[in-house]
């Protein structure tokens, strides 16, 4: 995932309706790559076309 600039990150927050203080934006921008890596990890690369619909029926 491409790195995002602090200014773009602030714009993302504003788009979500959030307007943190500048020092908070800086701090959140520092940890955001960890979240972005999680999003990428969840996406994976496997073929899921035949996957059943999302349910919670794995539990008996």
């Amino acid at each position, binding site marked *: 995932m491409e790195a995002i600039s602090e200014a773009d990150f602030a714009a*993302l*927050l504003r788009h*979500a*309706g*959030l307007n*943190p203080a500048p020092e*908070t934006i800086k*701090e*959140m921008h520092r*940890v*955001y790559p*960890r*979240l972005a*890596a*999680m*999003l990428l*990890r*969840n*996406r*994976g690369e496997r073929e*899921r076309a035949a*996957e059943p619909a*999302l*349910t*919670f029926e*794995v*539990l*008996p």
Partner: protein
Amino acid sequence: MIPTIAEAARQFETRALSPVELTKACLARIEACDGAINAFLLRTEERALADAKAAEQRMMSGARRGKLDGIPIAHKDIYNTAGIRTTAHSRLLADNVPTQDATTVRKLAEAGTVMLGKLATHEFAWGGPSFDLPWPPARNPWNTDHFTGGSSSGTGAALAAGMILGGTGTDTAGSIRNPAGLCGVVGIKPTYGLCSRGGILPLAHTLDHAGPLAWTVEDCALLLQAMAGYDQADPASANRKVPDFSAKLGAGAQGLRVGVVRHFHERDVAVSDATTRGIEETLGLLQGLGATIRDVTLSPLADYNACGYVIMSAEAFAIHQRWMLTVPGQYGALLRDRLALGGLIGGADYVQAQRRRRELAAEMKAAMEEIDILLCACQPGEAARIDAAPKWSGLETEGFTLPFNVSGYPAISMRAGFGTGGLPVSVQLAAKPFDEATLFQIAHALEQASDWHNRRPSMRRA
């Protein structure tokens, strides 16, 4: 010394102790200790004494309700209590007085328990330890300079300090098992759907679980017995018969098949020497008890954490979105910033996480086909100093507890010794869905085979 629930029940039966005497002893202990621990947000002395007197009258008239009758407990302050302030440890709900009990609060009251008060939590079960809220965070009775873990922080602390005999918690990513482990008590996150979340303030709907904490495994089984059961107020509640969770206590561990997820603590996340020693000693005890041990490999802990963290953050933001957009300054900084990051998770990202969840749950189901119990680390080590607990812990370090929230499988944390600083370390055991009875069986056998539960904190002051 405050007795365990089982001990108190036996003493009630022989009239060696009365509910009123025990309740007064707990209230005295709270008065003496809680100034240093901050486990209670609200004490309900009058209610407690009234509950205790009613229990005593039932006992005198031969109408005792069971082993929980007359037992003093307290509730995490995200459990609604009718007519009693329920704050979620947040300024936003500082004056919130619910009109109805949470389902589990009602069921525990119907079992005859005595309510001592409401317990500290992390703000809305996620924001803590925080020092900018109307109440201070709970501190660890083993060393009050240290963190309790969370978010059922007050419950873990009050139990370890001997102020209550049992208490309620919730667990979205480890919030029962972490404070239980770090405070040296026992906590179980039951199977998803076993205990109603009706009337409990949510953090993340598809990951939240309600459950008990207590000093011993047997006590947890007794509390869970009262809490479990179908409730139409919780859409995820499982409509199935509740088994006897104490049925296999005392049956030992002979022949039980235990799978150890070694790569969680040997490769995925570094743990302290004391934690490694605790895991190995626990495995040694299990072998001595006749259990068979084998290694089990699951996906890396990072996979479970990525899946669980994204789901939790997105669901939590959805729950708090209105307040986050209108009154963000009312939150403590820690929760506000964690929630804000959740606001950046898109719909596709959330769906991908749920799809991944299904794969991980299927993986766990397959891994458990030929074993009865999974064993793994619960925390990387002893509790950190309370002023050094990381703000972005879920992002910057992977926790050992989330795999069982993601999968919904029941998991218990229990003592496994002590670290170099004298604080407890713990292990985590998990079972197949709705097989809490086997989980209690093996955990009880382990507890009886060790003497860690005989050590109480000396309440060292900061």
